[in-house]
């Protein structure tokens, strides 16, 4: 009697948990793009921007690639892939030299869900990790 009651209780709990799980998994994925911060740093060479960009992308997304040949200042990072090799978040940092310093911009994209961070959150993290850029 008790075993039957326990079995039914466990079955009901498992069914409810499965139902709740499935009911929350149906949210459609959406592309999210953020035009992040733009900063001008005076009195510092653009090489420092490149170093900070690489460091920020690596710390936030796990990798950093400078697009093109040489010191282009065009940096990209992608979020860690899932078990299928798909990545659902990315960030770009653009460095450009000025007469006395440089200008840097942050641009990010994410597919939410499944990515935990929105594009805005990724850009905020990159901006914070970039720091003062000095």
């Amino acid at each position, binding site marked *: 009697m008790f075993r039957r009651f326990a079995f039914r209780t466990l079955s*009901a709990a498992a*069914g*409810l948990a*499965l*139902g709740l799980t*499935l*009911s929350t998994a*149906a949210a*459609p*994925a*959406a*592309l999210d*793009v953020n*035009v992040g911060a*733009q900063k001008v740093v005076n009195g510092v060479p653009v090489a420092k921007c490149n170093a900070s960009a690489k460091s920020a992308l690596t710390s936030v997304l796990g990798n950093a690639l400078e*697009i*093109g*040949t*040489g010191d*282009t200042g*065009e*940096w*990209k990072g*992608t979020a860690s*892939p899932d078990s299928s*090799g*798909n*990545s*659902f*978040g*990315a*960030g*770009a940092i*653009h460095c*450009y030299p*000025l*007469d006395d310093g440089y*200008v840097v*911009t942050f*641009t990010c*994209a*994410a*597919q939410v869900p499944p*990515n935990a961070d929105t594009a805005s959150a990724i850009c905020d993290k990159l901006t914070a990790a970039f720091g003062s850029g000095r």
Partner: protein
Amino acid sequence: MNAGPRQKAAILAAAFGLAVVWGAPAHAAVDLSVGIRHVSDTGSLSDCSAKARESLGAFLAPATESHPGEWLAVSKNGIAGTPTAAATVRCYGLSKGYVVTFTCAVQLPDNPYTADALCLDVAHTFYGGAVSVLPPIPTPTPIPTGCSTVNLVGTWVDDNKPGLTFTMDLTGNVTDSDGVSGNWGLRGNTVTLTYYGNHTLTLSADGKHMRGDGYSLTRKC
């Protein structure tokens, strides 16, 4: 506008950068294109902004300016009902002329073209160059209206509790009239209803009733 040596170098570097990344198939669900930068020795920030708005608008919905010289545009809704492509054009005024960067993102596989293809077209429209025809974005599947019997989309009434109704949508969601949600699936005439547990029901031949596992629902036309 003729390109100066500085411009040519920038364009060449960008083109080479694109060539490097072009060969890699885009497996990522989010595909981000980075690397196209253009420097103009003439023109103002407002000139850049005008061209940014125009070049984005040639391929995407009307662009919006978040800060002076910084533009974002998204595509029309894709098959899931949300935009699947977006591009940013960011202008910065220099002592002479301006510098502008192009960054694009698409959601794969829903979007029919890559982020690189979009960015190249936007950039070429901005400063000149060959423009490719981008495939059209598939339109969202319209939600059937009336009493369509090809799927379960629509409103169903519980025969045992006439005040209780279920709304089933195209993405497989079920919501009852009390706000409780679940999911539905249909294979042949077998309905899987996840609602306070999993239930298996049978859809009638005329598509207007489903019964089983204690449930009896009738389609409301």
